[in-house]
Structure formats: structure tokens, C-alpha cells
């Protein structure tokens, strides 16, 4: 640690109260300089207007899951540290791809590195005391501060154990600091949150028990697959057969009822979407879990680097951008405000083209429509074809290109293009011939992962390959991991340029501004996304599409629009009945 190129190294931890959907309320903070052992133990009423330690480029802040500490910084109005090393992200990086019996928390990291720690139960006891809220007795205060200091005091030894791994790669420390920089962006995004129509949410929550049954009746009119409130597989199989709709089967030869299958098939057959939404709403939707604060904003931990690809993994029932897409209708800017959903165009294909160095695929990307360009190269459509003239073949080519990114085989592709296995084989062969450099690079990626036991994004997010790693995951890793990298950098740039980013959503971001300022904010965010794509792809710019929603309009995801309409119509009906009653 002594040769770390920083004047001071500060280990920091906050205890805070985090009520569902609200910003954190700091309870106390402990900070220790790891070389001199200088110590601050400050209770909430002692926290100053600025950090009691330096946060300039010469000082390193070390924390575990720094987004939480930095959320407290924002709450206190403190400036963000210029250099952050988050041992949580580094532990994730160090063990990504490996199953950890004790999870990803601080205790697991300490155990993994052979360091002593308090027990899980002890930790839970102290956390419960903090979350109980004040007032705390003097003994409780002293105890909480000591518990907080305990979490700080283990960071020094943990850092010493982890540093060799962090610095094993030539740019390892700098890349770790870049990940730390993202934790500041996460704190800013969690601080902003997503504006939600709480009046509508209240109506939904109140009406949900009755809504469930009525929704079944309403949606099932077009399907006839429910008996009471029970989904009948045989009826669904008949519904598919009556329409001649090919559907992925289980090993037992029955139609697959996995949500992933429904989601994929709903893209191909939009008429299936309401059934998918209904099934998800009935089985997994927990409206009471949706985390909405007193300021009418959805706010939940984004769990950065939660996925193996490095993507965020916010809790699906707490986050408004979870799997129930119809629920996104609750996203609504407040009076005089506007939001914008900004989405990269063909991001995955652009990453594949750039990293593989396939000039023909790059040309296809730069044509603005890589899927149609592939269709033309494969002579599936005439040279003057457009998205409007050949929508179906373009869609098939899109599914083929995206499927090939993760090694989709002909049998799976056949369902997705609504064709035969032979059609799918021909399309995959055409893709291999059209973009041979990409195809070979894709094969090489799998070989590289299998041979070296490791793959990495351009900014060093690594994946350990184990015997359980699927080749398809390796093949897709460069697109997903670098896509995640791009999103992280875009979020850093946008939030540092003071754009209010409400949330990252897979390969898109949601921003907010005043109705009058939204166009400038969009321009700024789009520039941040362009800058991020140039950084990750060595100069290649990926453009983005924008959807702006101004008050009093609400956000709507097309995939959930039909379901949202049914839900709101039913709620209106209930209220009319109540008024008449």
C-alpha cells in the first residue's frame, strides 16, 4: 500500500437509514487514513459541511460498495472524491464467474482473503439497530460507531490482500479507479431517482386484488387458456396449434412456459404480449415492493457490477424498469418537468463490428441499418429495399445477427424467424459468408476463453471461465461486457456534466430536466453516449434514439401498452361503479 501513488489513502464507511425509496440519512461516519492511522469518528450531528479529509486527485477514498457512502456524500452536500477505489467492485472483478458460498458482501470478501471478521449475525444486529432509527442511547451510539469503525479497520488489510490482484494487469489500478468513478455516477443516479405517478400507483395497489381476476377475464378473452385463475397448458397448446404458431418446446415436448420464452415470442408475435404481461403480473409482480420515496420517486439500489457482464442488477420488484413493462406507464414527470429515454441504436452489432474489425460489418453498421445491410449482402432483398418495403426479412436478419452474437443455433433461430430449421441454417450460413471476419473472431473469442480461462472487456472487466461456463456466454461476452462498459462511461460523463440521469436501463438511460430544458439535456446526454461509444470502441460513434415525455404525459413502453390500457380501463370502471354506488 505504501507505494500507492497517492498522498493519502482514506478508508471510509457510513451507517445510514435507508427507508424504502428514500435517500439515505447518514447516522455516523468513520474514516481512517491508512498510512498515518488518523481517525475520524463522527456522529450525524457532528458531520461537517465538507469532508474532514481531502478528496482531491492526491487522495484515494477506499470503501466497500462505495455507492452507499457516496450517496451520503450527496445527502450532506459534500463534493465527490476525485479518486475512488471500491473493494466491492474489485472483489466482484476478482471472483466474477466463480460461485461464492458466502455471497458478495464485505464478510465474504474478508473470508475469501483469509481475514477475520465479525459474524453475519453480529452484523445483522448492528444494522437492525441503525435501521430502527433514533433516538439512540449513548451506549448505542458508541456501539454503532465502533461497529462502523470495525468495517473501516478491515479495509486496510483487505486492500493489502487485493492490491496485487488489482495491479496484476498493467492498467489494473487505473481501470479499478474507473470502476470507482462509476460508483459516484451510481450514487448520483440513485440520488435523482425515477419520477412516478404515485396517485396512479395508489389506485393500482388498492385495486390489485380485484384487478387480478378481472385482468384474467379481460386478457383471456383473446386466448381462452385460463380456467378460473389457473393457466391450462393444454388450452395454450391448442391455442398455438389453432394458429399454427411454432413455439419452443420443453424436453418433454410441451410448450415452454418460461418467461424468457414468452418475452422472446412476444417480440415475434405481438399478440402474445398481453398474455406474457398477465402471466408475469400474476406470478411475480409485487406492487407493494416497488420502492417509491416520499418525494414520489422510484429509488432503489442499482447493484452495479451485479451481473457477470458487469451490468447493474437492481431488484426486479423494486425497480420500475423491472420485467413488467406495462408498469412503466407509472413513470411520469412532475409538473413542468420532462423525461427522455435515450437508447443506443444497434449497440451490440456496432460493438461486434468494431472489436472484430470486420470492415463489411462496420460498413453495415454505418449504413444506419445493419440488419437490412446484411439482407442485401446475402441477396435476400433487392439493393433498393428499405425497412418499409421488406420489414419481415429485415426482422429475420435482425434476429439472426443478434442471435449469432451469442451462438444461437438453427433450431432456436427457427422459432424466432418463424421458419424452418433449414431456413435458419441457410440464414446463419449467409451471415457467416457475409461477415467472415466477425464469424472467425466470434469463434476465436470462445477458444480464447476456454484456453486462457479468462475474458476481459476493453476497460478490464474480467470473466473467469469455469467448467460451468457456457460457450454461448463466452461468445456473447464481448458485446455484453463492453456494452455495459459503454453504459457506465456514459453515465459517468452525463452525471459529471450535471445532467440529471434518473436510471440506466440496459443499453439506455432515462434523464430528466425542466420541460424547457429537456432538449439541451438530451443533446448533452447524447453527446455523453457518443463520447462513451468512442472511448470503448476506439473511435466508433454509435448514435442514439430519443423519446421525450413532458408533463402531463406519461412514459409508455409499446410492449406493455395493451396491458396498461386494460388495467387503466378496469380501474376507471371500478371508480365509476363506486361513484354510482
Amino acid at each position, binding site marked *: 500500500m*505504501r507505494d500507492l501513488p497517492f498522498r493519502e489513502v482514506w478508508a471510509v464507511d457510513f451507517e445510514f437509514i435507508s427507508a424504502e425509496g428514500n435517500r439515505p440519512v447518514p447516522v455516523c461516519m468513520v474514516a481512517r487514513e491508512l498510512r498515518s492511522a488518523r481517525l475520524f469518528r463522527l456522529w450525524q450531528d457532528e458531520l461537517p459541511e465538507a469532508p474532514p479529509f481531502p478528496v482531491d486527485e492526491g487522495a484515494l477514498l477506499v470503501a466497500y460498495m462505495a455507492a452507499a457512502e457516496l450517496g451520503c456524500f450527496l445527502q450532506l452536500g459534500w463534493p465527490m472524491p476525485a479518486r475512488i477505489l471500491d473493494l466491492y467492485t474489485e472483489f466482484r472483478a476478482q471472483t466474477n464467474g466463480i460461485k461464492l458460498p458466502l455471497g458478495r458482501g464485505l464478510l465474504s470478501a474478508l473470508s475469501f482473503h483469509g481475514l477475520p471478521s465479525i459474524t453475519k449475525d453480529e452484523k445483522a444486529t448492528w444494522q437492525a439497530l441503525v435501521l430502527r432509527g433514533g433516538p439512540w442511547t449513548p451506549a448505542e451510539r458508541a456501539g454503532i460507531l465502533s461497529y462502523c469503525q470495525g468495517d473501516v479497520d478491515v479495509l486496510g488489510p483487505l486492500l493489502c490482500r487485493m492490491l496485487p490482484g488489482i495491479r*496484476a494487469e498493467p492498467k489494473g*489500478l487505473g481501470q479499478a479507479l474507473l470502476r470507482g468513478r462509476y460508483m459516484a455516477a451510481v450514487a448520483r443516479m440513485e440520488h435523482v431517482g425515477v419520477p412516478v405517478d404515485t396517485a396512479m400507483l395508489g389506485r393500482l395497489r388498492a385495486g390489485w386484488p380485484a384487478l387480478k381476476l378481472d385482468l384474467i377475464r379481460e386478457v383471456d378473452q383473446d386466448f381462452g387458456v385460463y380456467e378460473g385463475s389457473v393457466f391450462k397448458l393444454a388450452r395454450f397448446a391448442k391455442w398455438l396449434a389453432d394458429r399454427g404458431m411454432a413455439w419452443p418446446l420443453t424436453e418433454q415436448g410441451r410448450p415452454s412456459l418460461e418467461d424468457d420464452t414468452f418475452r422472446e415470442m412476444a417480440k415475434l408475435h405481438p399478440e402474445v404480449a398481453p398474455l406474457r404481461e398477465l402471466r408475469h403480473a400474476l406470478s411475480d409482480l409485487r406492487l407493494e415492493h416497488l420502492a417509491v420515496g416520499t418525494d414520489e420517486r422510484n429509488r432503489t439500489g442499482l447493484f452495479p457490477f451485479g451481473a457477470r457482464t458487469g451490468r447493474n442488477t437492481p431488484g426486479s420488484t423494486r425497480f420500475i424498469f423491472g420485467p413488467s413493462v406495462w408498469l412503466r406507464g407509472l413513470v411520469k414527470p412532475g409538473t413542468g418537468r420532462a423525461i427522455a429515454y435515450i437508447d443506443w441504436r444497434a449497440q451490440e452489432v456496432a460493438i461486434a463490428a468494431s472489436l472484430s474489425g470486420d470492415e463489411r460489418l462496420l460498413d453495415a453498421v454505418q449504413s444506419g441499418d445493419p440488419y437490412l445491410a446484411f439482407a442485401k449482402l446475402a441477396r435476400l432483398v433487392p439493393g433498393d429495399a428499405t425497412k418499409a418495403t421488406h420489414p419481415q426479412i429485415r426482422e429475420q436478419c435482425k434476429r439472426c445477427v443478434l442471435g449469432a452474437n451469442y451462438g444461437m443455433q438453427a433450431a432456436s433461430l427457427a422459432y424466432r424467424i418463424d421458419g424452418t430449421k433449414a431456413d435458419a441454417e441457410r440464414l446463419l450460413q449467409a451471415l457467416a459468408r457475409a461477415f467472415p471476419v466477425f464469424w472467425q473472431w466470434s469463434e476465436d473469442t470462445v477458444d480464447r476463453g476456454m484456453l486462457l480461462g479468462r475474458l476481459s472487456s476493453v476497460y478490464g472487466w474480467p470473466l473467469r471461465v469455469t467448467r460451468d461456463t457456457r460457450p454461448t456466454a463466452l461468445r456473447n461476452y464481448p458485446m455484453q461486457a463492453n456494452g455495459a462498459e459503454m453504459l457506465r462511461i456514459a453515465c459517468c460523463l452525463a452525471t459529471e456534466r450535471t445532467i440529471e440521469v434518473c436510471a440506466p436501463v440496459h443499453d439506455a438511460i432515462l434523464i430528466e430536466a425542466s420541460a424547457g430544458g429537456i432538449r439541451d439535456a438530451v443533446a448533452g446526454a447524447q453527446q455523453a453516449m457518443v463520447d462513451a461509444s468512442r472511448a470503448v470502441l*476506439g473511435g466508433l460513434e454509435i448514435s442514439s434514439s430519443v423519446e421525450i415525455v413532458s408533463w402531463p404525459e406519461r412514459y409508455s413502453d409499446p410492449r406493455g401498452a395493451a396491458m396498461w390500457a386494460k388495467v387503466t380501463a378496469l380501474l376507471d370502471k371500478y371508480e365509476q361503479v363506486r361513484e354510482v354506488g
Partner: protein
Amino acid sequence: MTAKENKAAGNPAESETPDPFDLDALRAQPLEGSLVTRELSTVPVRRPKKNEFFRVHPDPDYVVDAYTFVHEVGMDKETYWVTAGLRAELLEHLQPTRLFTCVNRADVTFLWPAKLPDAGGGGGRSWSVSALEAAERAKTSWLRIHGNKDTGAYDRFVARAELPEPKFEDKTFGELVRIAFKDRIIDSIDHSLVKEIYGLI
């Protein structure tokens, strides 16, 4: 860990503070190049399938006339390479064959043992002649062949689409033949198939 320990562990020590805002400096070059070499291990020896578009290598160095032995077991036929020293011995059991180097649309290379017509104009001559004509045509065009029992010959179906030129394996014909016949070479009178021919087993 001290600088000395760090160096001993093989870790580079930063001479200055790495800057998380300098994205160009932090970016690693994407890994390029293959870590594996594909080795051609199998070259099928067979007639083109009825739905298979194929091309024939136009280089005369990639075709040879040879006497081969065709071993039939039920519906399956396997073609064996017979070394020069044994041809006279086994002549009446061998088939005069023209061995073409072919590639299909999936870039699979195979050798096509096309039977040469009998000098005496015996039965099946039209099959052989039409096969050889198709092979000649396939040196410049993608086509498929389909046996037509009514005419006793192969029909040719030439692709009308503008298709890319074929990709042949970067191997000499000798190398392709060795791979194709690696475990189907009759090089001794002690070979089990020779013994079978002479009723010795």
C-alpha cells in the same frame, strides 16, 4: 505491500497517479488473433448429395485417375485407395475412377470418385459420362446433380444466383488424398479386404 514486494510479485508500480478520467490511457487493445489453428482431419470421399451445390477445383493438379476399390456393406459404399503395387494383382476387383476435388456452399471439401465409363460401352455409361460432364461444368459454375432413372443419367441444375467463388482448402492434392484415405488404404495383400476378396477370412 511495499514497492519492493510489489516488484517481486511481478506487479508494475505506477510512477504517477493513474487517472480514471483519461479513458484513452486506460483502454486495453481488444485481443486479436486466433489462439488455435484449424487442422483438416476429414475429407469425405463421396458423390455430391442431390441438394448440394458444389464446385470442382479447376486446377488439373487437383484431379487424378485411379483404380479404387469400392467396399459395399448393405446400402453403404466405402471407397478405398489401392497402392500402385497392388493394382495389377487386384485389377478385376477395382473400379477406374476420376477423383475430383470439390467444395460445397458450406465450404466443406470432399473428393468425388466419379466412375470412368467402361471402354466397351457397357451398362451405366450414360451415368458416368453425365457425371464427368457435370464435373467439368462445376469447374466454373455452382451446380447440383440429381440422378434421373428415366434418362439413365445425372441432371444438372446450375445456380442462377451470383454466388461467391468457392473457397478450397489450402492443401496440396496429395495432402487431401492422404487425409481422405488415411484409414482406407489397401497397401498389402494381407489387408483384410483382400483376404475377404480371396475368401481367406
